[in-house]
């Protein structure tokens, strides 16, 4: 092998050598950039605060820049390469026609401060998407400003707060099941509320008695995802909502799991007042390696006046920006992740009502089918019919072999699949949260089950082999403790060497 990355020449296709950083392949004076020469008379402006240092950016030729990022891309797994059963993340296939839409010059090159009269198409995109979203969730209006789910949560909670303020009440706690995603409690705190956790009962659902006991005038609201993070539908939801409403609390729907109920059931009908959706999950917009997402927040009629604004609204025949009467104000610098919304609209219009219901049906079918194919090493955390995802515990396997959930996840990578979500929700010991999504074929689901079975068998036969997995990936398990102990966050920090290993 030539040296790692072969100084901008070797390829992960062959041997998977590491890739040097851009700084390592940088050479003084080398360049990719070109700009037209200045075509106005230049003059000395003598501006204040002019630069004192030259930012140390890499200097590379376009050829090496391209090779670098092309090789980096080949060091990454993705939905386009294979199945990605990452629970709670809904890693479904992202249709290419949506990429086409997001590249559309009429939207891509549009400045956000273009007057509404000159950007009617863009406003129409927002209004059309809002209508579909509200129909699916049973809400009245929605804002697209939140850039992701967590931003949606905070926005929804600020709406909740504005609602209570408007009624002269100042309740201070928000109820959250112990199985909730981390962003929920974090958002609650940021919104100035206290979190009160609700335990799950033996069914893996919110313990109704515990909820009854927790309900009082200090309760601002309840935050819930349904199906919950165990993949179970909260069958008491209507009663739960009634209890919260009885003390004038609001019920918030975390839409991360909306995929399971599209066209089948609506948060609005369950009694929810505020609903955020993750377009980057349910509506097939790609995750982009971690973002951008889009977390629109939809609300019932009586909360519309508090929504962030302005909202694209039909005003005598044309679209215009309208600020809700008692808006909490802005939560994004512009109109949210607009091109992500455009992708979602493209997807929604392609599927239509029938296709959207198919999403729920097939995602639940795939999850149930996969669950039915798994051997007993993968014990269902709660024995109930799952929705679009399910959580198994390998606590038994761990006791028998020492092989943990993380080991199983890593071993799966060697089989050509992405790992499921591990150790979430926290209420399940050695949890594996598995979500096949509706875009995988039955054959893929069967191959996935076969891989789980093979790993289960190997865990018994040769636990060490599973504990040392993965073996065929570009790197083996990274030392996270070392990374935290010696943070190397930029290439100006000296890099680590094996001497730093414990």
């Amino acid at each position, binding site marked *: 092998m030539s040296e790692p990355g072969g100084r901008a020449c070797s390829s992960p296709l062959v041997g998977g050598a*590491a890739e040097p*950083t*851009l700084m390592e392949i940088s050479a003084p004076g080398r*360049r990719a950039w070109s*700009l037209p020469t200045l075509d*106005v008379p230049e*003059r000395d402006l003598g*501006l*204040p605060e002019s*630069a004192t240092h030259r930012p140390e*950016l*890499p200097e590379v030729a376009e050829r090496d*820049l*391209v090779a670098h*990022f092309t090789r980096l891309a*080949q060091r990454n797994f*993705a939905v*386009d390469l294979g199945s*990605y059963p990452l629970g709670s993340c809904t890693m479904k296939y992202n249709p290419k026609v949506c*990429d086409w839409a997001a590249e559309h010059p*009429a939207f891509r090159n549009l400045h956000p401060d*273009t007057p509404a009269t*000159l*950007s009617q198409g863009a406003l*129409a995109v927002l209004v059309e998407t809002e209508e*579909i979203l509200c129909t699916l969730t049973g809400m009245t209006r929605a804002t697209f400003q939140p*850039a*992701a789910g967590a931003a949606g949560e905070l926005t929804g909670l600020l709406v909740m707060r504005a609602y209570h303020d408007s009624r002269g009440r100042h309740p201070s706690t928000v109820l959250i099941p112990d199985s909730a995603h981390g962003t929920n409690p*974090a958002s609650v705190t940021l919104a*100035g509320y206290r979190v009160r956790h609700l335990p799950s009962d033996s069914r893996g659902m919110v313990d109704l008695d515990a909820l009854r006991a927790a309900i009082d005038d200090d309760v601002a609201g309840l935050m819930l995802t349904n199906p919950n993070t165990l993949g179970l539908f909260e069958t008491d939801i*209507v009663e739960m909502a009634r209890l919260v409403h009885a003390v004038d609390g609001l019920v918030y729907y975390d839409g991360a799991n909306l995929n399971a109920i599209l066209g*089948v*059931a609506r948060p609005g009908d369950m009694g929810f007042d505020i609903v955020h959706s993750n377009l980057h999950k349910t509506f097939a917009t790609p*995750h982009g*390696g*971690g*973002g*951008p997402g889009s977390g629109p927040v939809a609300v019932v009629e009586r909360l519309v006046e508090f929504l962030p604004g302005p909202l694209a609204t039909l005003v005598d025949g044309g679209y215009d920006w309208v600020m809700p009467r008692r808006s909490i*104000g802005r939560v994004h*610098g512009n109109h949210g*992740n*607009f091109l992500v919304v455009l992708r979602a609209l*493209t997807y929604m219009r392609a599927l239509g009502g029938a296709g959207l*219901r*198919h999403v729920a*049906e*097939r995602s639940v079918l795939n999850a149930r089918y996969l669950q*039915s194919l798994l051997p007993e090493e993968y014990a269902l955390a709660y024995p109930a*019919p799952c929705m679009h995802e399910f959580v198994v515990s390998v606590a038994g396997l761990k006791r028998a072999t020492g092989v943990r959930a993380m080991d199983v996840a890593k071993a799966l990578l060697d089989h050509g699949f*992405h*790992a499921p979500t591990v150790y979430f929700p926290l209420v399940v010991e050695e949890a594996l949260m598995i979500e096949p999504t*509706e875009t995988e074929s*039955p054959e893929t689901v069967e191959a996935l089950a076969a891989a789980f079975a093979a790993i289960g068998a190997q865990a018994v036969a040769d636990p060490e082999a599973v504990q040392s997995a993965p073996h065929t990936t570009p*790197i083996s398990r990274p030392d996270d403790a*070392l990374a*935290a102990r010696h943070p*190397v*966050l*930029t290439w*100006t920090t000296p890099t680590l060497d094996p001497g730093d290993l414990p």
Partner: protein
Amino acid sequence: MDFTPHTDADVARMLGALGLAESADLFRHLPAGVALAHELALPVPMAELDVMRHIDELGARNTAGLCCFAGGGIYDHFLPPVVRSLTLRPEFVTSYTPYQAEVAQGVLQALFEYQSMVAALMGLPVANASLYDGPTSGLEAVNIAVAHTGRHIVWLSRGVRPHTRQIVGTFARARGLEVVEHPLVDGRTSWTDGPEPAAVVFSQPNHLGIIEDYDAAVTAAHGRAALAIVEADPMLLGVLRRPGDAGCDIAFAEGQPLGNPMSFGGPVLGMFAVASGLLRRVPGRLVGETLDRDGRKAYTLTLRTREQDIRRDKAASNICTNQTLNAIAAAVHLAWLGPDGLAEAGRQSVQKAHHLADLLCTIPGVALAHGAAFAREFAITLPADPVDVIAAMAQRGYLAGIPLGDDHPDLPNGLLVAVTEKRTAADMTGYAASLAEVLHDV
């Protein structure tokens, strides 16, 4: 059309294996009142070609190809095709947050390089892997300051981008923070004294395009043991002083001009860098270098105990999904530009802005709103309502700028005009000529 592979035979086979008769049986356990009894009133499915026609029609309802002189954080800079080619690699586009480092070295290393370049750009030691956008990054910066100082007052320059001020306001109301706005005098912030703040927040250049006095702001902050927080224009960091060099504690930026099209304002990205002392308060993801079990260099998400999924209700920020793909685009563009290209793009933007300002000021009734030095964006006052002027200019093919009146009552007829290196001398001559006509007509 939908994108599920299942044939009717597949569905029958799978349902059969589960002992179910029809798809509806999958939902039998839903309570009666909850399961929908009727079909929702949703659009009918469309063939791919029909969907594309529909999107084309919507697109056609936007006025096409306006020559852009609007800015305010989102700018029409030159984006080389290579940025799009590399950023849109499906391995980047269709992967999730790189929690499984063994199969995510591509995204992780790209983000590590992004962090390194943003740190270099800001002249600060640490940058995170991106936030939602510039304005919301300002909010995260204020949160750090409040947590770091335990104070609840925030000094905000009137020159900070209005949307940033509004977002801080939205949040301050909920959190009971007191926001003290400091006025502009001839376009530059004058820091008047007052109770000790957690942070002093300003923009460089400010929303009116004017170059602020770094030392005045940083002294105002550090003199009161507050954090100096600046919103920087990333395209100017090759020509203007870097926040770190000026002594700022936190720098954030609307990163759109680097790697990302205007996109009607989103998705863009928030760039975020801090002084070393604030490392453990940084919101969002951080990618760190480490070694794998075989001693090979590897990248991984690090210092995760800061984050919501671990710290939960104690977390200082709730951000999870960020703007990774936009950050990768920014990294590719920054590497394409290099230090010289960045400086040249900034230099040309500034030179051209002054060229256009001169042209416009020769038009009767048009004048610069302020005497202070500006960079690549400037405010002019018009003898007519900017809203009408913008509409008339659009007829002539120009997006003339952004009206200032709403945010700056002292400039009822103010227009904010931005110029990038992409605008030609001809564009500017045409703009000036059209504006003269328009003003003559109204």
